[in-house]
């Protein structure tokens, strides 16, 4: 049974879209994505999201949240995608909060309330050089010490790792063949070397080298009961599925925006004595964009319903939605530029930035080709 009714979801979506149109115009994106910006995202916006209850929309009520599911988060992500929002929403709310809620110890659960209050951002630091999109390829190790652990390894370039307050780091306990564990690492821990850079779409991140990073025992996600630590491979795979689906929602929002902008542009752009929107070839192209965006949205919605409804085939639906979204994002983004002609190639217009966002979305948590390969190999066991 859905946590929010259809009316509540509509209200959520409308208040998100109202906020973004009023307070997150394209110029805001431009300012936040500029090299000189100290954070690479909007701290005031993050505080506003907290105040408006959006950071807590899928947090349990015991943590001050609204008890919503992934669908509610997806609604947030779609509106964020529409606005090219820069904030660490998926990494904090889907990956971070998701991991803590599912596997955190009793003490660690208090982090959820902090997340809901806007006091904490989290970066998902799991993928490593050599892994590609493989989900359990981790060489980072965590050695046990007297009062905690020492982490060493490399993590690939990932969103928000440049300044998130916590890094959610996967590591093998005891050695390269040990069980896979997750650690909530404070950003200021010694021994973390960051190579900071921008993503193609202007968001910021970092690649990490962890050299003997000491973390306290409480950093380990979940409790070590009786000396054994649970292997988190299944949790990690489930989190990645959810992250992938959340990014599908973000892409759906971006595709809707870009289709609307393209239609509006072609109605005003005149060549050969008439608006370009009168040419049938271009009309059909815009219809193709609209159809493709709708297919991605529908597939994503279906997967969200499966997820929140506890369907046994949720993984299959998520993977298929990711493949569909990747196809659509590529087509819709590319056509948006093409139909804007020379203007679509400028930094000045929003359209190129949407193209870049869609390109990043396409490749986060696995690209279409990877998911298709897994589906073809029948690698999709029940989640």
């Amino acid at each position, binding site marked *: 049974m859905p946590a929010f009714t259809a009316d509540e979801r509509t209200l959520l979506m409308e208040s998100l879209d109202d906020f973004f149109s009023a307070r997150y115009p394209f110029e805001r994106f431009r300012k936040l994505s500029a090299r000189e910006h100290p954070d690479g995202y909007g701290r005031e916006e993050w505080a506003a999201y907290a105040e408006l209850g959006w950071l807590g929309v899928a947090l349990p009520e015991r943590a001050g949240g609204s008890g919503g599911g992934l669908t509610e988060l997806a609604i947030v992500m779609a509106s964020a995608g529409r606005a090219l929002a820069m904030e660490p929403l998926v990494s904090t709310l889907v990956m971070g909060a998701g991991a803590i809620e599912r596997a955190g110890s009793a003490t660690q659960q208090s982090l959820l309330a902090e997340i809901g209050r806007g006091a904490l951002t989290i970066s998902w630091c799991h*993928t490593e*050089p*050599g*892994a*590609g*999109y*493989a989900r359990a*390829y981790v060489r980072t190790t965590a050695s046990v010490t007297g009062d905690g652990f020492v982490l060493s390894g490399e993590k*690939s*370039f*990932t969103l928000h790792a440049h300044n998130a307050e916590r890094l959610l780091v996967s590591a093998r306990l005891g050695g390269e063949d040990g069980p896979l564990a997750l650690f909530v690492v404070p950003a200021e821990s010694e021994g973390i070397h960051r*190579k900071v*850079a*921008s*993503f*193609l*779409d202007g968001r910021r*991140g*970092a*690649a990490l080298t962890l050299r003997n990073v000491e973390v306290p025992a409480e950093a380990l996600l979940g409790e070590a009961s009786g000396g054994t630590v649970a292997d988190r491979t299944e949790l990690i795979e489930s989190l990645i599925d959810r992250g992938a689906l959340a990014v599908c929602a973000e892409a759906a929002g971006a595709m809707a925006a870009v289709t609307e902008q393209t239609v509006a542009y072609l109605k005003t752009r*005149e*060549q*050969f*004595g008439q608006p370009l929107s009168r040419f049938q*070839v*271009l009309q059909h192209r815009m219809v193709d964009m609209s159809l493709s965006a709708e297919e991605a949205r529908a597939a994503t919605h279906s997967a969200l319903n499966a997820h929140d409804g506890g369907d046994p085939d949720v993984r299959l639906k998520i993977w298929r939605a990711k493949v569909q979204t990747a196809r659509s994002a*590529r087509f819709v983004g*590319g056509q948006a*530029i*093409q139909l804007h*002609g*020379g203007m*679509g*190639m*400028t*930094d*000045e217009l929003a359209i*190129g*930035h949407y*193209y*870049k966002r869609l*390109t*990043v979305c396409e*490749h986060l948590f696995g*690209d279409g*080709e990877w998911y298709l*390969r897994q589906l073809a190999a029948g690698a999709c066991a029940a989640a």
Partner: protein
Amino acid sequence: MFIHGNERDPALEAFRKEVREFCATHLPVQTRRKQALGQHIDREEYGAWLRQLGERGWLAGKWPKEHGGLDWSPEQYAVFSEELGRANAPAPVPFGVTMVGPVIYTFGTEEQKRRYLPGIARHDTWWCQGYSEPGAGSDLASLKTRAARDGDHYIVNGQKIWTSYAHWADMMFCLVRTDPDAKKQEGISFLLIDMKTPGLTVRPIIGITKGHHLNEVFFEDVRVPVENRVGEENKGWTYAKFLLGNERVGVADIGKFEGYLDSLRKLLNETEEDGAPLERSPEYQRKLAELEVSLETVKALAADQLAAARAQGSPSLMGAAALKIRSSEYQQAALQVIVDVLARNGLSYQTDALSPGWNGDLVGPEEMAGVLYEHLYRRAATIYGGSTEVQKNIIAKGALGL
């Protein structure tokens, strides 16, 4: 159907070797390396290479001997372009040698030929192309930049856009409206404008690559001597069409395209997934094979263009349109696969890494910045030089009689 043969010409093979050796000995190592990584090359470095080609006589190799060229056949020119592409040499900027030069020697006065052709052939002069305007893109003939006659000058007012390298150029060839009352194609003239003329302002346009080579150019009462008009007043559209015909031949960058596949093979070997090189993936082997097929087809289309040019004495506009459509699509497809391979490292875009001599921390493979730049830049491949939509209209009208 299958009419023209593919004669193996030993002289052509010898020429190919000659060009290859010239690049190996004359292209500076640092220039080659910057090109390979997609790093920016400044005006001096680019100009130095083009001047070397000019000294060899190759820059204007396609021109008739009487105008300072070498009377190259279309095949020779194709070989020359291909080998430069293969060697990662900076390509000759087309505005001088390929575009305005032939217009001047075909329609210009003796004085104009004397004044401008040598500078073009030696690359003493950088040229840029003042064609498109904000309101005149695909519909170029609707251009509005006005040139009003005032004694022995034209006074030019208006704006051009998408002007490549205007910020480097010494001269611009420019389409202007000299008769606003005539039918649009019949009121256009072809002017040569000194970029230093008072009233002319260049403003950079930053692309989605975050790079700069395009500009807007504003004209405010810019005085251009009448002797800088090429050909007859109001007949500029004829010269423009002639030029566009030349622009669209040899648009397939075969050397560069083969370079993409070489990069892809290298990256597939170096990029791992789950600890194993991606080149072992049957899916990527298949993608590579499909790209190889597409490239083979593009090369065949290009070869047909050459054969037609040889047989008819002039390039086929239909063939040029087809080649432009397919080669731009191939270019985008190849780059997309390369980006897909690299994206596994996280899609970092470090534009700083495109400045040679930057020694910051590279995130990901060293090819990343250059590949992403090229991928973004070539989203315009289906837009510039006549968009795919325009090219299809050309074929629809010209070849299919629609």
